[in-house]
């Protein structure tokens, strides 16, 4: 099998960190971590001012990140990869591992995204969570999240990345279940946690194979040597990493948790489940680029996962009536785009990360907009009960609208540059059937995206008003609108800024290596035109159905595909049928009902294990003679075992 990316790429060598600014990069993680610790340990005493401390910690990290960025930019491109060793972490015999940070263009791009968007959302949350008794705890978790996420992207080894990976998982769990007095939300948190564990299992397996193959798990030890390992090992590492990425980034087949994760407060959905944490999988794949380039099968798997998820999410998004769940489906689909691009390699890396950044802005903006709408509508999320809100909340409408134009990919908004780049790359990479299949998937995805995002926008802000009488929609306070406005500016201009003159491509070059342009199987400008036509068709369809026509307040039954999409294309049922039922039949342990709440793969597995436990428990009869007999049996088996080995 030929690699999707034929040319070898050259990446910049790693240098040691120099200067006080680079040496102090650990402060990036330490600042928000200290914030979280102070808030958690400080208790009620910090209630009065705790949220401002968290905001300050987050902005502090941003300022430091920006200074670092300027510092790296002042260096020559080939010197922009810096390694900072912090302390000896696991010196276990032949295995020496230092905890250290890697400062390079890729990690710094993430640092800026996380700290900037994160800080804006901190500000927004001050107002959004104003009436919550546990606001301090909320901010502590947010800070914990920022610290973990920064550790994740700054780590210089897979082991330290894993620590951050678990940290963001924990923060996500805590924040989804923040209102855990509602059992549904607590269940959602548990579901997210469990499905993430499945992914984490993949990541830990990958790390183990890496260690067995290379004897080290640092990027510096693994990535430059990836080409020399056996293709077989690289394929397994790649697939295991992909499983990890799928869990964290809600990619097929581990995507089911993201919709339920919307149970968390909306700023959390914006920060964690749209802009940053869920994109960690894309980061992992891009960071591990050399491994995938040495394992074409794994690389192809990434592309397929991306393509399936982007269509899957888009279809689900068309049917959801809950504004946050529709946005979540859209997130899933957009990350599918990034994943696909990351799997294509080469220029695909650049567009994957670029789309990640632009998406971080416009999707976070839209989530904050959704939060603002909910704020004004008594926390209702039912889009069928919105309509014509544009008059009542002008700022929200305008900022949301700009985000909408950006995700549609209308020039010259942000999404146009990044998404069009991905579509073009998909049509340009690989041979034979691949450019056609993957290219068409991205193209069709763009059309569906236009439809469901327009549907969402029109149902919420346009058409006729459908709110109940007791709702009094109003604009949110300025602490909430200002972050939305800033994000909207990003939605408008960030894509163009990064794309024009190949700015972002040049910036990432030390990490992704220099890449050649490929020629798409359809010429560039006709392809762009085709995309825009499809987008226009999608918008027009949505306009006819959800602006012009009356939107029923209760959802009509719909066609079979609508019904399927509403139920997440039966993902939960598939999980149940494939994993849970056989487990239960196998053990007949219907008594073990603890898993009732946990639908999904691991729930079923737990039922099976629990049933086994119930069986084994009978061994523990309480009679000392039974114990002695079982010990004797053990002795006999052990003796026979020892003798058999020799015999």
């Amino acid at each position, binding site marked *: 099998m030929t690699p999707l990316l034929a040319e070898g790429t050259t990446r910049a060598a790693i240098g040691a960190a120099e200067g006080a600014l680079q040496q102090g990069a650990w402060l990036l993680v330490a600042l928000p971590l200290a914030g979280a610790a102070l808030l958690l340990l400080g208790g009620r005493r910090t209630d009065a001012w705790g949220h401002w401390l968290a905001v300050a910690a987050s902005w502090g990290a941003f300022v430091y990140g920006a200074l670092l960025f300027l510092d790296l930019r002042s260096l020559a491109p080939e010197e922009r990869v810096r390694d900072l060793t912090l302390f000896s972490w696991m010196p276990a*015999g032949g295995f020496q591992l230092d905890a250290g940070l890697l400062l390079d263009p890729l990690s710094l791009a993430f640092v800026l995204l996380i700290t900037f968007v994160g800080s804006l959302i901190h500000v927004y949350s001050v107002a959004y969570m104003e009436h919550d008794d546990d606001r301090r705890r909320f901010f502590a978790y947010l800070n914990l999240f920022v610290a973990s996420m920064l550790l994740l992207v700054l780590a210089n080894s897979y082991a330290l990345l894993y620590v951050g990976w678990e940290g963001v998982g924990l923060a996500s769990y805590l924040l989804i279940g923040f209102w855990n007095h509602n059992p549904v939300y607590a269940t959602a948190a548990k579901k997210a946690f469990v499905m993430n564990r499945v992914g984490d299992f993949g990541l830990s397996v990958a790390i183990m194979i890496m260690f067995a193959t290379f004897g080290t798990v640092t990027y510096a030890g693994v990535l430059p040597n990836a080409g020399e390992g056996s293709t077989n090992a690289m394929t397994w590492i790649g697939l295991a990493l992909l499983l990890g990425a799928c869990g964290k980034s809600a990619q097929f087949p581990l995507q089911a948790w993201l919709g339920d994760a919307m149970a968390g407060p909306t700023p959390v959905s914006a920060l964690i489940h749209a802009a940053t944490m869920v994109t960690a999988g894309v980061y992992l794949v891009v960071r591990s680029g050399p491994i995938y380039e040495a394992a074409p099968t794994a690389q192809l798997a990434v592309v397929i996962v991306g393509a399936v998820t982007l269509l899957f999410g888009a279809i689900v998004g068309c049917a959801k009536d809950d504004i946050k769940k529709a946005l979540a489906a859209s997130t899933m689909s957009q990350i599918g785009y990034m994943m696909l691009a990351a799997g294509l390699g080469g220029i695909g890396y650049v567009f994957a990360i670029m789309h990640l950044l632009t998406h971080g802005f416009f999707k976070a903006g839209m989530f904050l907009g959704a939060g603002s709408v909910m704020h004004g509508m008594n926390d209702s999320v039912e889009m069928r009960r919105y309509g014509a809100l544009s008059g009542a909340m002008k700022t929200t409408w305008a900022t949301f609208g700009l985000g909408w134009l950006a995700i549609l990919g209308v020039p010259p908004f942000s999404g146009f540059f990044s998404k069009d780049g991905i579509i073009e790359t998909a049509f340009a990479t690989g041979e034979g059937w691949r450019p056609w299949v993957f290219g068409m998937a991205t193209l069709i995805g763009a059309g569906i995206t236009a439809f469901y995002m327009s549907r969402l926008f029109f149902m919420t802000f346009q058409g006729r008003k459908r709110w109940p009488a007791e709702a009094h929609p109003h604009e949110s306070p300025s602490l909430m609108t200002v972050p939305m406005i800033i994000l909207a500016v990003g939605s408008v201009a960030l894509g163009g800024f990064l794309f024009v003159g190949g700015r972002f491509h040049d910036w990432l070059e030390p990490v992704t290596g220099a890449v050649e342009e490929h020629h798409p199987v359809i010429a560039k400008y006709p392809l762009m035109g085709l995309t825009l036509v499809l987008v226009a068709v999608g918008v027009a369809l949505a306009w006819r159905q959800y602006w012009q026509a009356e939107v029923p307040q209760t959802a009509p039954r719909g066609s079979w595909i609508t019904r399927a999409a509403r139920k997440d294309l039966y993902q939960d049922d598939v999980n149940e049928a494939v994993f849970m039922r056989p487990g239960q039949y196998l053990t007949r342990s219907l008594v073990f009902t603890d898993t009732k709440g946990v639908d999904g793969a691991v729930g079923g597995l737990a039922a099976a*294990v629990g049933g086994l436990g119930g069986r084994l428990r009978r061994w523990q009869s309480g009679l000392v003679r039974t114990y002695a007999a079982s010990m004797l049996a053990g002795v006999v088996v052990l003796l026979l075992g020892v003798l058999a*080995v020799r015999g």
Partner: protein
Amino acid sequence: MTPLLSVPVAADFVAPTVDYVAVLPMLIVFGAAIVAVLVEAFAPRASRFSIQVGVALVGLIAALGAVGKLIVDGTRVETAGIPAADGTLAASIVIDGPAIFLQGTILALSILAVLTMTERSTDGGAFTPQASAVPGSPGEGAARRVGLVQSEVFPLMLFSVGGMLMFPASNDLLTMFVALEVFSLPLYLLCGLARRRRLLSQEASLKYFLLGAFSSAFFLYGAALLYGFAESVRLADIAAAITGTGRPAVVGQDGLLLLGIALLAVGLLFKVGAAPFHIWTPDVYQGAPTPVTGFMAACTKVAAFGAMLRVVYVALPGARWDFMPALWGVAILTMVVGSVIAIVQTDVKRMLAYSSIAHAGFLMTGVLAIDKIGISGVLFYLFVYGFTTIGAFALVSLVRDAGEDGVGGEATHLSQWAGLGKRHPMAAGAFTLFLLAMAGIPLTSGFMGKYAVFSAAVSNGAWVLALIGVLASAVAAFFYVRVIVLMYFSEPSGSASVVATPGVGTLFAILLSVVVTIVLGIAPTVLFGPAEAASLFLP
């Protein structure tokens, strides 16, 4: 050559030399135990309890100091190379790196255990007022009213600690057997001294005694067979006989060797609680007074794994291909049985018992790495696991039934732990930390411990063990997390429970355990260094 069989002639006799500094920790502990017996005999009843606590603490701390001196000196670890010189007491005891590390661990843990045993603020303490009174009889009621205390707990516990110090330092099988009995017999008694549910406690004691005697018999029989093979009980001689460099092994005597190894292993596997010899664990852990359970769970495991390491690494390296497959099977079975059965437990002490079985399996993966980093991994794991366990059981002893007249007996049913997080955030938080550490969540000491043993296993080709270990950990994580969820996200059902206000001793033990768990999770190097430096056995 064979002094046990031929009549010794006075001229052949060489008096053993004793390196008193090296065995000082053991001497101090045994001395303190004897003093404690005298205190028990002569001290007035009113002040007996406090004197006993004082003697126990002073003895253990002084012994820890003596271990500290050995560490500082360090010479004994390096210079000793020749059997007669390195060992003491005719080379029946060897004080090398692992022995010093394990003795230090045992002493530190037993100091915490003594502190938890001093707890009397909760319902008069964990121990029965008079062990000889029939449960439920008028005599028992009278003893309770008078306020008697069974303060023999402390001398018994000191003897047990002394045996534990000796066990991993034993250089021949007979000394090892003596040590095994010295630390086991007091434990059997201690298990039967619970204040509440005394019948359960006495049943546990009897079961532990019977099965313990059964396993000791296997150990002794194994030692006898190995003596038949090597004509010596010294570990180094056995190793030499296996490789054929010592006394030429009798041709065709491999049967003796293999059966001897297997039977010896049974005795050790029983003590660490490995399946299928684990079966006493849940009943005994549940029945014993909770501070004793904590002491037993932590210190016995340290001592027994120390001895297992010594036997496997010093006596049997030449025969490893013969016994490794069988021990692999035991390790796998132990991990699976421990994690799987724990899921269906409804009593927190039984759950922790099964969890300790699972941990025995994880530790065995480190032992079976047959490598230096395996040793250091196991040493590290034992240290962190010991602290987590003592802390966890100390907390269990604080959660009580909410009776009408204040605190009642221990509330060990899991349903009584529901909603504890809301009512007692500090206690629930600490317990959560211990559970997370046992589950091996990163940034807790347990993660580094698991990481150390699994990576040792992987780097020595035992990746199957490590894989099963990781899977079993995942299963185990489920039931640990279930308790956390229960504490934080469930409404209380069933009879209510309260957390008793701990006394100074228990509080200190819990706090220290918390600190160790966190510090070694974040900066494991602090202990990895010493563990690595200590991980060299002397023959």
